[in-house]
Structure formats: structure tokens, C-alpha cells
């Protein structure tokens, strides 16, 4: 507790709640995952359209559309989204944002393009709060 005496009075963050602790690192990880998830989601959408709408690779013996780019895209996207959620929860937790913000951020990982848009907003807000 005595260290807090060295803190600048304009940055009143006493040793009490761990809010914003390590927030910068979390912001960086969130940013990376927002881009990766967003990109992967676009690839997944492309695959969905090619597979289910265009039937680019035809149908299999059972009459189901065959994967075009590969089933791995859906599998990988699922796990990337899990990692994205982890970074979202970590950042949200550090920033002490509202529950609604968390829901929005989680949603951004499954709505095409939304993660890119939201990431900009989140990044700007977080940077402002962290005092750049």
C-alpha cells in the first residue's frame, strides 16, 4: 500500500481493485484476435456460400453438398472464436465495462465484419481511458 504514495495524484488508482491491471496487454491480444476471428469468419461465410448456395463442389452420394475449401474452416473458426472470447472476457474484465458491452463484443465474433468495426471503437475507447 505504501507504494501508492509514489503514484501521481492525477492517476488515482490505489492498490484496491485490480481494475485496468494489465489492460494494455489484454487490449493488444483482443485486437489481434478480433482481426483473426473477423477474417476467419469471412472465409467461413465464403465457404458456406460456395458449399450450400453455389454447390461449387457438387453433392455427395447422400445428396449433401460437399465442402469446397474444406471442413477444417468451420472447425478452426470454432476454436478461434473460443480464443477470441477469452481475450474479450479478459479485456472486458480489466476495463470494468458493462455486461451489455460484453455481449456486444461476444456477438461481434459471429456477425460478419462486425468485429472489425467494433474493434476500432473498443480500441479507441480503451486507449482514451488508459490515458494513451
Amino acid at each position, binding site marked *: *500500500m*505504501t507504494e*501508492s*504514495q509514489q503514484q501521481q*495524484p492525477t492517476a*488515482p488508482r*490505489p*492498490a*484496491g*481493485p485490480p*481494475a*485496468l491491471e494489465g489492460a494494455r496487454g489484454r487490449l493488444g491480444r483482443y485486437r489481434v484476435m478480433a482481426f483473426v476471428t473477423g477474417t476467419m469468419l469471412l472465409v467461413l461465410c465464403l465457404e458456406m456460400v460456395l458449399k450450400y448456395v453455389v454447390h461449387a463442389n457438387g453433392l455427395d*452420394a*447422400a445428396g449433401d453438398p460437399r465442402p469446397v475449401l474444406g*471442413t477444417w474452416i*468451420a*472447425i478452426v473458426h*470454432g*476454436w478461434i*472464436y*473460443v480464443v477470441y*472470447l477469452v481475450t474479450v*472476457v479478459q479485456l472486458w*474484465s480489466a476495463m*470494468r465495462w458493462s*455486461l451489455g458491452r*460484453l455481449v456486444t463484443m461476444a456477438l461481434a465474433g459471429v456477425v460478419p465484419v462486425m468485429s472489425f468495426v467494433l474493434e476500432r471503437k473498443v480500441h479507441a475507447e480503451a486507449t482514451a*481511458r488508459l490515458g494513451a
Partner: protein
Amino acid sequence: MPETPPAGPETPARPRVTLWQVARTPRMIGLLVLFLAAAAVCGRLGAWQLERAEVRGAAAQAQRLAEIEAQEPVPIEDVLAPQSTFDGALVGRRVEATGEYEAGGQLLVVDRALDGRTGSLVLTPLRVTSDDPDADGAVLPVVRGWVAGDDPGDPLLAVPEGPVTLTGYLQGSEDSGELHGALDPGTTDSISSAELLGVWGGPIWTGYAVLTGAEPTQDDGIALLPPPTRSGTGLNIQNLGYAAQWFVFGGFAVFLWVRLLKDEVLRESGAFDPEQPDAPEQPGAPERPAAP
């Protein structure tokens, strides 16, 4: 965790709030119900995906079997030469071979299950006759089927004499088991070409054939085995992944409630104000220097 409550003008000496007290507030109980419901939904979705993984895995397995059964048999020497490496893609390949069984070499592979019953496989060497000089005279291990007992003297096991033409599914050789001699005479515990080479002599194929039919026919007291498949869990990997992800999401819901609870405790204790995190929320903290 909450520190000693600050004695500021707006927060006059609040009592220390425990986790348990906060957890019992209507707001936190309501949130708990909400999050548990969300976790339950996630769990249910995970279970559903597990079910789908099983159904789709079984369907894929059935389709593979159907494909294997629909194949036309090809002469074994066309797909695999004796003494050459067995490629995993050959598992389940339908082959045919002509030759003569060597009754003296027949072994019972003990402790093998068929439809949940334990018994033995009948393993008989077939000395192949072929136009192909590489294959002619080589030994093909043939699993003629399954019997309930483990007595090599069972009359059921009598080996058909004379030339025989058989069809069967290819399967890769197993690892060597116990040394010969450690088991009862006429029995073995593995179908290992490396081991059989020492017993039967070579050249030998590095896989074996699982009999599906022979001309002349053999005693139908020996049960034929189903087609071999490459080892796999029979679960669809994609749905298995989705199932795991749903369970992770369910875990998230529970974790979030704990997180919110801790925040609430801090707020109740006046330790911080999440609505105005940038405001100096502890004006009266004793160890803090006065603002300039």
C-alpha cells in the same frame, strides 16, 4: 479482494461486505439464475452436438463399410506384393487369392471378441499359386473366421483340402505378441506377419486377408468377420469440436457470474466505482496524499 473500507465523506465507514452477503442480494441471485440458465442451454447444445457427432460418425462409418462391400475383388498380387510394406489405405480392400491351405500351420488367435463374445480367430496360411512369380508360392495369412472356443483340436476347424479360391478384405499385420511357446501349442495372441514368417516360412504378405467367401466353401460353423475399418472413434470430429466449444461457453457463463460477484463486492465496499473509473473514487483514503 476488498481492502479496509475508506472513511471518506461520501462513504462513511461502511462495514466490510462479504462475498456471501453480496451473493444473496436479489440482483446477484437473479443474475445467477440467468447465467445458470445460459450454462444449461450451452450444456444442452453441447450434448446435442455430441449426439450429432455420434450419428454422423456412425453414418460415415456405415458409408465406408458400404463402399468397402461394394468393391469388386482384385487379385491380391495386383495391389500388394509379398514382403512389401502394407499401406494403410489398403485396409478393407477386397482381394481374391488362389492357393492351398496348409493345415499344419493353422493357429487359433485367442481372446478375440465378435459381437461382444470372446472366442478365437481361425488363422490359416494359404500357399498362393499365381502367374505372378513374386506371389507364387508366397504365404497369405487368412483369418477364416471366428469360433467360440479356444481348442485347436475342434473338428469345426478342419482345414479344407485342395485348391481353394477365396475372397477377403485386406487388413494390416498386428504387432508381435507373446513369443511362440509361451502360449498353448496351436494358439497365438496376435496376427503378426513378422512372427508368422518364423513359423510358416516365407515369403509372406505383410497383411492378412479376412475371409468373406471361399470356393469350395468352408464349414459355416466358423463365423465370418465384418469388414475391417481403419481405426477411428466413429465420432464426427467437427461436431465433437462444437460440443466441446458449447461446454466451454457454458463454463464462461459461470465464470462471468463469479467475476460480477467480485466486482459487486468491491463496489459495495466502496473500493471502486465502475461507473466512473477515472474519477478519484477514494478521496479519503488515509494513505493517499492530498490532491494538489
